């Protein structure tokens, strides 16, 4: 039967969310002939709709439903209602992401074994390893057209990269290049080459950056096997007396509620909404939330150890010109406890426009110390630090019953406090970032605090043993045989790398698994 599908059609796979996880999974299943209904809370925006203006774009794309924060992280003080900067739209946060596409390192799948017992950290080995993931990474790189893989050229370096590169070379760093980016360095796959426009975070108006919004989603729809229902916000997952999921309740754009029946349900709403949905789906059979017999749903929330370093020079840089994140130093990504912490971090070029720089350079700051920094905006270079943070059981998503969303459901609370390892790693990265810029003549540097989270991970972690996590090696819930988690919330640990490539690789792999289980008649 071809799309659109009937609400009572219980042969369909329902995918909740259409980003890097859900969008890819939905298309991959559709390509294999599986009937899919994808429910997306946001609307549909395409390159012609994207806006080269930071605040206007933020208003267009950002997920702004009520959320609360707690814990020691500075975001809870400066942006108490905005723990994460992620997208509510068809294609999810693949509209906003910068395109950095790095494979995990082998040891990052085995952190409990490699790092040992780090006090206060809930480290666990993934039930899979790099060798198993390599063919899926290759498929993901091919799908996304990642530069510096599969014979594809790297992107040219912009001004911001040239400053980073010169400083990094001065320090003796070796692994310095314009990144492995899901941004075309040449026309490919019906998409333009990068035009060095900047505004990568606001949606690529050329479509040079891969986004599910204009690749996987329309291609899935073209098969006739995928129906994407936009502005369809899932409220609850339903199950039968045997504990198998049977469908999902969602609100459409007018707030009317519908029940879509399902053979399989795949949750891909990002690491805040996915556990929230499972918790909001509590029932007599699953009193602590769906798939939560381990008590791990919502726990081990990770956001990467992040921070930025901006530097002012005596001459112009104009860092905003060109690809935002096409520049990387990888030498510190290794695991080397002699630095005073486990795990590692990447340094990647980053720029903000003037409006966001004013909001994020030093939130709450005022006076001349702050404004003289902005006065030198044209002469600034910038980098982003992204490193592995420690999973902690107490960093978690919970339901805040004091705050209700537009559907009357409890809003998610995001609690986060840095682990001492995160702090030690950030301080090391600040020091190295500052040294890079000082090596090429920076007159002033700014160790800038983390922004609202863009990498949200780990809240439905993958585990070998059902006691330790929420899903198994396929992203399948330990407790519910026809329920899957398909986004970054299934990450057991976070690794140092930007997560999207791994989310996409896992989604391609999961589609293969689901289709195979369905054809074997066991799903």
């Amino acid at each position, binding site marked *: 039967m071809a799309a659109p599908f009937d609400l009572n059609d219980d042969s369909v796979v329902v995918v909740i969310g259409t980003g890097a996880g859900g969008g890819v999974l939905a298309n991959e299943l559709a390509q294999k002939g599986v009937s899919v209904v994808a429910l997306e809370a946001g609307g549909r925006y395409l390159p012609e709709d994207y806006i080269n203006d930071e605040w206007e774009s933020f208003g267009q794309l950002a997920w702004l439903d009520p959320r609360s924060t707690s814990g020691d992280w500075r975001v809870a003080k400066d942006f108490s209602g905005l723990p994460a900067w992620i997208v509510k739209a068809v294609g999810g946060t693949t509209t906003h992401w910068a395109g950095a596409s790095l494979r995990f390192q082998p040891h990052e799948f085995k952190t409990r074994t490699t790092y040992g017992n780090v006090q206060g950290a809930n480290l666990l080995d993934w039930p899979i390893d790099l060798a198993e993931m390599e063919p899926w990474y290759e498929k993901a790189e091919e799908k996304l057209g990642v530069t510096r893989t599969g014979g594809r050229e790297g992107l040219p370096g912009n001004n911001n990269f040239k400053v980073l590169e010169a400083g990094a070379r001065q320090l003796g760093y070796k692994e310095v290049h314009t990144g492995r980016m899901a941004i075309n360095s040449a026309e490919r796959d019906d998409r333009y080459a990068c*035009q060095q*426009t900047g505004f990568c975070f606001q949606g690529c108006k050329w479509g040079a950056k891969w986004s599910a919004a204009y690749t996987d989603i329309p291609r899935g729809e073209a098969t006739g096997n995928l129906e994407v229902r936009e502005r369809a916000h899932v409220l609850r997952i339903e199950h039968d007396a045997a504990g198998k999921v049977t469908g999902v309740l969602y609100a459409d754009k007018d707030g009317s509620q519908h029940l879509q029946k399902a053979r399989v349900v795949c949750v891909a709403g990002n690491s805040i909404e996915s556990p929230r949905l499972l918790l909001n789906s509590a029932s007599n059979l699953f009193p602590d939330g769906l798939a939560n017999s381990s008590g791990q749903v919502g726990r081990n929330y990770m956001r990467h150890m992040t921070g930025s370093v901006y530097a002012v020079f005596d001459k*112009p840089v104009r860092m905003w010109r*060109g690809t935002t994140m096409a520049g990387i130093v990888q030498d510190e990504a290794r695991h080397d406890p002699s630095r005073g912490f486990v795990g590692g971090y990447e340094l990647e070029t980053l720029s903000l426009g*003037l409006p966001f720089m004013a909001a994020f350079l030093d939130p709450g700051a005022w006076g*001349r110390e*702050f404004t003289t920094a902005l006065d030198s905006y044209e002469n600034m270079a910038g980098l982003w630090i992204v490193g592995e943070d420690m999973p902690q059981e107490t960093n978690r998503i919970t339901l805040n019953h004091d705050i209700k969303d537009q559907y009357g459901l409890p809003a998610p609370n995001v609690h986060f406090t840095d682990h001492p390892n995160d702090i030690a790693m950030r301080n090391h990265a600040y020091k190295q970032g500052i040294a890079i810029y000082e090596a090429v003549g920076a007159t002033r540097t700014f160790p800038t605090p983390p922004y609202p989270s863009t990498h949200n991970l780990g809240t439905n972690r993958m585990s070998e043993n059902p006691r330790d996590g929420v899903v198994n090696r396929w992203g399948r819930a330990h407790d519910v045989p026809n329920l899957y988690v398909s986004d970054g919330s299934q990450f057991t640990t976070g690794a140092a790398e930007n997560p999207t490539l791994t989310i996409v690789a896992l989604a391609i792999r999961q589609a293969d698994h689901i289709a195979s289980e369905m054809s074997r008649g066991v799903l």
Partner: protein
Amino acid sequence: MTETLTHRNMTRRQLLARSAAASAAFVIGPGFFAASNAAWAMEVAHLKPQTLATLVQMARDIYPHDRIPDEHYVVAVKGYDTAEKAAMVEAGVAALDAAAQGKGHAGYLAIGWERERVDLLRGMEDSAFFQAVRGGLVTGLYNQKAVWPLFGYEGESYSLGGYIDRGFDDINWL
């Protein structure tokens, strides 16, 4: 003198254009209130003229950019000139003036040195009034497209074809 008048008139025109688009309550009239340096002018609908002038000085003291003319600070705070917000702003500015008087000045605007005004602001930076004004300025001031060129920021670039042929890699001093 001619130069001053021209400058003043241009500023008013710009202000008028911007205000008309943003807020009907903000009207330039013949009986406009002019700041002490006469670089900008506006008629207030709900606030005392002196209150608005104090608010503009406060905005500049919070985010001082010596190359940004007053008109942009006026645009950034003009949203407080509403029936709804007037009482809060009048009370906040009165508290600021009282603090200035406590230091022996006639009022906040009478303090000559920025450092002394900033000291007063530091003393009230946890107040709801200060935080509202400061927080509002982050977008009210820095999201004005007209101020971007003063920082060198170029804004939208897609319609110009990006920077691929316009200097994305033109750095020449490394």
